[in-house]
């Protein structure tokens, strides 16, 4: 499902304090089936951008189009419900939203709200549990008795169970050990590849950007200052320093090898496998 922002501005309100234009005149077109990394410093408007897609935040001007659903300044309830059904949103530390007595009830919460019937609910609970790689033994346990990594996966399953076409995630790997983080991200990558889910992910880790995503969207002070394919973005890796971003480890390694050996590889490698292949092809190994 494609997502289109047309001259969108939005304010953010927390308590009595209203911050104007946290999203400032954004026009972006995110193609169906892409895996986009949203990068930017704290307060750049990344989370607000995600919330706009899900209708949790409404624009003050402009138009957001998710598939054939249009969201404007004052969206209708039906539109909101529709868009929330189509867009699955995983917040930062999603395990904080778990509440039900059993894992099963918690995962079934979303589908039930969206009006799935009992059979569909049972099926989607099983499927999503399978997708996140948890066994059905835990269905009757309390979500609060699970480990942090398991809780996060249950929360993710709770979102996947609503069968969204678009998945937006706010730092899904934050606070997990490297192994847990890798599992979650590979899982999301699989959903993107196999189910053609359109994925947007907020991340600070350039290694993840290089390894998993195919598009990069950089935000600064509510504006999108860069939106391009990941490979071409890293091809001009000089510009990364302009944006104040680190190089991914692989590219750094490639750079070091090129410098030490006085060679220049034909393209930038985004994964270590790619770098090895490149080196073999160019007969430097």
């Amino acid at each position: 499902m494609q997502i289109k922002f047309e001259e969108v501005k939005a304010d953010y309100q927390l308590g009595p304090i209203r911050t104007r234009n946290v999203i400032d005149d954004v026009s972006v077109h995110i193609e169906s089936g892409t895996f986009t990394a949203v990068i930017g410093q704290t307060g750049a408007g990344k989370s607000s951008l995600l919330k706009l897609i899900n209708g949790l935040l409404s624009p003050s001007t402009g138009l957001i189009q998710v598939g054939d659903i249009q969201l404007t300044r004052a969206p209708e309830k039906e539109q909101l419900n529709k868009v929330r059904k189509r867009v699955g949103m995983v917040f930062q530390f999603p395990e904080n939203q778990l509440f039900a007595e059993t894992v099963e009830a918690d995962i079934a919460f979303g589908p039930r709200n969206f009006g799935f019937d009992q059979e569909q609910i049972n099926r989607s609970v099983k499927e999503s549990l399978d997708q996140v790689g948890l066994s059905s033994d835990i269905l009757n346990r309390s979500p609060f008795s699970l480990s942090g990594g398991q809780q996060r996966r249950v929360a993710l399953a709770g979102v996947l169970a609503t069968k969204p076409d678009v998945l937006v995630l706010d730092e899904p790997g934050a606070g997990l050990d490297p192994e847990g983080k890798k599992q979650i991200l590979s899982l999301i990558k699989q959903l993107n590849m196999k189910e053609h889910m359109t994925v947007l992910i907020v991340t600070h880790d350039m290694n993840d950007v290089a390894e998993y995503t195919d598009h990069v969207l950089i935000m600064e002070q509510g504006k999108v200052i860069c939106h391009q394919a990941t490979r071409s973005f890293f091809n001009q890796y000089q510009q990364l320093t302009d944006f104040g971003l680190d190089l991914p480890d692989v590219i750094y390694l490639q750079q070091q090898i090129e410098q030490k050996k006085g060679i220049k590889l034909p393209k930038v490698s985004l994964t270590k496998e790619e770098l090895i292949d490149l080196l073999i092809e160019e007969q430097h190994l």
Partner: protein
Amino acid sequence: MNKLILGRYFPGNSYLHHLDPRAKLVAAIYFIGLLFLAENVLSYLWLFAFTMMLMWMSGVSFSTYLKGVKPLIWLILMAVFLRILFTGGGTIYYSKGPLMISSFGLLLGFYTFSRFVMIIFVSTVLTLTTKPIDLTDAIDALLKPLRLLGISTADFSLMLSISLRFIPNLLDETQKVLDAQRARGVVFGEGHLIEQMKKIVPLIIPLFASSLKRAEEMADVMEVRGYQSGQKRSSFRQLKWKACDTLSMVIMCALTIGVIILNHF
């Protein structure tokens, strides 16, 4: 959630912001007591004028104060109606069984209403212009005499400052969980009463869980840093009584004299 004004601090630079929190706290409590001294319309107007002046001085818009009254309006109206319906005397316009509408009742209803509104306005002025942490210092200072009776006031004020400290966090967290459950298809504020109450569960339980977790972490951190209850401790922030604080006390006295005089008209 965003409508809750009472208990919020608005940073500012007004005369009221600079007053000693002890002076403000004493004055606010005193003013509330004074409200019960007022006996006629004139003295109520006098106090109301003073309240308006305070609100103007705080530099916060009037609509903000009205928002503070809004969540409590049904409670106030309830109290007012009970007053009106159960008070006899003066001219009686309507009566049925024990219920009646009399001129005395209407007057008392008006008094009750203005008392409530002024109490809310004044306490809102207090919290809008005083940092919560200053307020707890003030409470601590005012409770000091209790120490002579062997009551640990430090624990009490610590408890108070911790709970005040975490109100913004709790609000932020509520907003987050609210959004997260909305994203999972909950529509808050719809359906009949039972349905609405059911929808609160996915909101309350995560909040309880995270609050308990945080309380435990907090206790651990305090212990690690060597906090012990019942110890004599000094304060990093020292409160200073200034001339303007004394002036504000004098103004309160003048206000009282005004009420006493006006009560005779």
